[in-house]
């Protein structure tokens, strides 16, 4: 089979796929290093200080210096570490993230493959890196790593559900114009999701879903306030405490690559991607490079919000984190899916979605407030232990 790429006709499909993969991988590495530098600079500005300034002009080569340092480190291996799990864990964290880049829509036709089940593929693939975390934690033969790995797994699994339901509630109401002029509803194809937003982005119809996607995304990325596996004072590195050098840098890169994917997905699904306000399939389109810049701008909004939250908010404890997901986010998302379904079936005007979404945000605030103000639940054995301690 043959297809065309960049105007060259009759290119073998496999070669075409390979070229796209190489382009994306190259692009991604550079952007991830830029993200690391950007995070340090932006966090520094939030703290009223300068970030890196000495390596290269304005510190731009800081990521390169870090990468060189990590590559040059000694490759340590604990003597009692289980060989298979310890060695394979970085790959199981790193590779699914890269595979997730397959479906990310940069601009129309500028992606590796357009999959009909794009969103499902994305959700399935990002679930695999939880296995990698557990393997890293268990294979390290270190009790702190094990604690960190178990906590990471619990957190990752708990926050998958609100994330998936958020994406589902958007995918449900997407309008797909069919060939005969009819409109079908519901699609997992990312291109169609983006294209359906050419007049109004999804953030207007689903405000609650945007908030929940942001929070669940922070948890999936293991970022503050959910960075218990990697940032706690007593489990300093979490599951990665025994890794050094290149293997640790693979974890680190995977985290930032996941951040990049999540932000591009956010731009595509909620903010209109390359379609709003640029238009699709018409002659008054914006040129491709302008659309790419538009997508980059929207993705960087998400990235900036992630850094902003990191600079401002303390860390949650593991039981509070689980409670927040299962008791607050999940019920809200189930309610949202039901409302979306009702609007879909009974053909109600879409403004109801906005109103319900805003009410949902108010409900979220109220539920969090109530959960914080109620008296704290102590572990069951606390009273007995305390009386013994005196």
């Amino acid at each position: 089979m043959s297809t065309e790429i960049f105007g060259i006709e009759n290119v073998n499909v496999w070669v075409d796929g390979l070229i796209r993969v190489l382009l994306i991988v190259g692009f991604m590495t550079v952007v991830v290093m830029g993200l690391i530098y950007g995070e340090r600079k932006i966090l520094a500005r939030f703290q009223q200080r300068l970030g890196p300034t000495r390596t290269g002009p304005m510190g731009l080569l800081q990521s390169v210096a870090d990468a060189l340092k990590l590559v040059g480190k000694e490759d340590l291996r604990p003597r009692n570490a289980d060989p298979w799990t310890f060695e394979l864990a970085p790959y199981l964290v790193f590779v699914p993230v890269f595979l997730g880049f397959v479906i990310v829509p940069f601009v129309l036709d500028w992606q590796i493959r357009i999959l009909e089940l794009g969103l499902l593929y994305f959700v399935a693939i990002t679930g695999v890196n939880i296995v990698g975390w557990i393997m890293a934690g268990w294979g390290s033969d270190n009790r702190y790593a094990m604690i960190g790995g178990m906590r990471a797994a619990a957190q990752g699994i708990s926050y998958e559900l609100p994330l998936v339901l958020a994406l589902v509630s958007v995918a449900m109401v997407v309008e797909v114009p069919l060939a005969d002029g009819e409109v079908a509803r519901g699609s997992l194809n990312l291109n169609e999701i983006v294209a359906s937003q050419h007049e109004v982005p999804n953030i207007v119809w689903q405000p609650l879903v945007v908030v929940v996607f942001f929070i669940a995304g922070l948890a999936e990325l293991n970022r503050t306030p959910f960075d218990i596996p990697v940032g706690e004072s007593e489990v300093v590195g979490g599951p990665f405490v025994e890794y050094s050098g290149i293997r640790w840098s693979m974890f680190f890169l995977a985290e930032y690559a996941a951040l990049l994917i999540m932000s591009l997905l956010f731009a595509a699904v909620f903010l209109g991607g390359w379609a709003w306000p640029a238009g699709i399939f018409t002659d008054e389109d914006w040129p491709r490079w302008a659309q790419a810049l538009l997508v980059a701008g929207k993705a960087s909004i998400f990235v900036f919000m992630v850094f902003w939250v990191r600079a401002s908010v303390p860390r949650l404890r593991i039981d509070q984190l689980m409670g927040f997901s299962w008791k607050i986010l999940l019920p809200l998302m189930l309610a949202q899916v039901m409302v979306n379904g009702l609007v879909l079936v009974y053909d109600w005007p879409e403004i109801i979605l906005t109103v319900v979404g805003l009410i949902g945000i108010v409900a979220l605030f109220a539920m969090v407030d109530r959960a914080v103000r109620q008296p704290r639940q102590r572990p069951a054995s606390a009273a007995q232990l305390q009386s013994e301690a005196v």
Partner: protein
Amino acid sequence: MKGILKSMMVTASTFARKPVTREYPESHRELPERDRAFPLLLWDEDINEPFCTGCHACERACPVECMTVIMKDNPNHTAHDGPSKRRKIIDSFYIDYGRCMRCNICVEVCNFEAIAMNNTWQGHETSVYDRSDLVMDLPQLLAESKAGEIQEWVAE
């Protein structure tokens, strides 16, 4: 969640302020005149000899015993047709900057106003590669005052 939004507003307001970082070593902060780095000996320019006569007052007063003082007869004394009124003069003076705790007592007990705390940046930038290089001898202690770079502050 309102509290979290309030925290984010505070962080955003800091984003807009000017960073407080000073890029050392390109730019140095101006030191106040009372700044107290390590002790130095002062040079009497009129007669071209140190003020210090080696009377051991500072050596006895030092809490950490970081000084070693040896005096000698002054060859420049008026008895030998010289311009100086000091009968004795300092022969060798060692201060171990690694032990000194910069408490200022040596300055307070000195009868001749011969020792002062260095209030310039050179007093603070005393890094060496070998710890024994921190023991300063008489020429090193007199160097800055001889060059006229010291404006010592005297407490009233």
